[in-house]
């Protein structure tokens, strides 16, 4: 019997990607992680986050009747499956892609956030309060820490 996995994958992945992007902006703004935000002030970050999350869910539910069919079923002899493992893998793929996109965009947007190279690099996420992800990583590697 043939099987189809892609049907739900390409619908769920954009939902996770864009909602994760929004959630990351809200979380970064809340924690004061200036190096991860797309905007200088928190309010636009919250607004961007809310629009991304709501927009992603509205798109997802507008493009299909999500409660109408089971995630594992047989359609015209083709087994359609999207079980727990597939859902988890897709969620992780979407969330990690959103994190990578956030790091790339925020590093470009905030390229001038920290010009001094004399200061030490704070540990963990605290570093992203005053510099971008790539600035933190490169300074750490340069100092050999």
């Amino acid at each position: 019997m043939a099987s189809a996995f892609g049907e739900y994958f390409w619908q769920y992945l954009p939902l996770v990607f864009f909602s994760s992007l929004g959630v990351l902006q809200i979380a970064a703004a809340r924690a004061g992680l200036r190096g991860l935000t797309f905007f200088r002030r928190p309010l636009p970050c919250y607004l961007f986050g809310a629009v991304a999350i709501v927009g992603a869910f509205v798109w997802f539910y507008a493009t299909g009747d999500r409660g109408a069919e089971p995630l594992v079923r047989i359609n015209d002899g083709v087994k359609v499956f999207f079980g727990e493992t597939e859902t988890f893998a897709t969620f992780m793929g979407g969330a990690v892609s959103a994190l990578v996109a956030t790091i790339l965009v925020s590093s470009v947007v905030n390229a001038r956030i920290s010009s001094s190279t004399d200061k030490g690099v704070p540990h963990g996420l605290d570093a992203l309060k005053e510099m971008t992800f790539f600035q933190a990583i490169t300074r750490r590697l340069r100092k050999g820490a």
Partner: protein
Amino acid sequence: MRLVVDDWFVITCLALSMIVIWFGARSLSQRQRNQRAVWTAAWGVGISCLWFHLFRINEIFDRARPLVEPPLTYLRTDQSFPSEAAAVGFAFATAIWIGNRRAGIALGFLAFLWAFGRVYCGAHYPSDVIAGALIGIFTSFLMYFIWRILKFAPNLFIGFMRWIHLA
């Protein structure tokens, strides 16, 4: 109500909330508690699901779904007892509650709504979701105590994430 009984909405919201809890704390001490809670939640949910598949709990009890024509969702033909959705929801909520009371209560409300929705739409009996919730709560506490003993594993993971400035 249809939104909370489908297979997507609540579980996605619960998983997205893990991102907020991981990144969103303002102080270092709260962040460390939150990140340990997310670690525990991930294991709690994973092991809760593992119980269902490893021991085939649903097949052992072999209880039919309450309604043959559910009003809000598709017809479920697999076994009803216990509810895996309730186990997952309450595993998330319990693990987070241990590290962050306010977030845990919010997630608990979401998990309750999910479980209530499943009963409301005829996908489960109340006893199904109560048993599922107990499995989830038990598993998250079990994971919490296991990772308190085997501290090195979460410390290693969170330490690495901290080294690359993501924790």
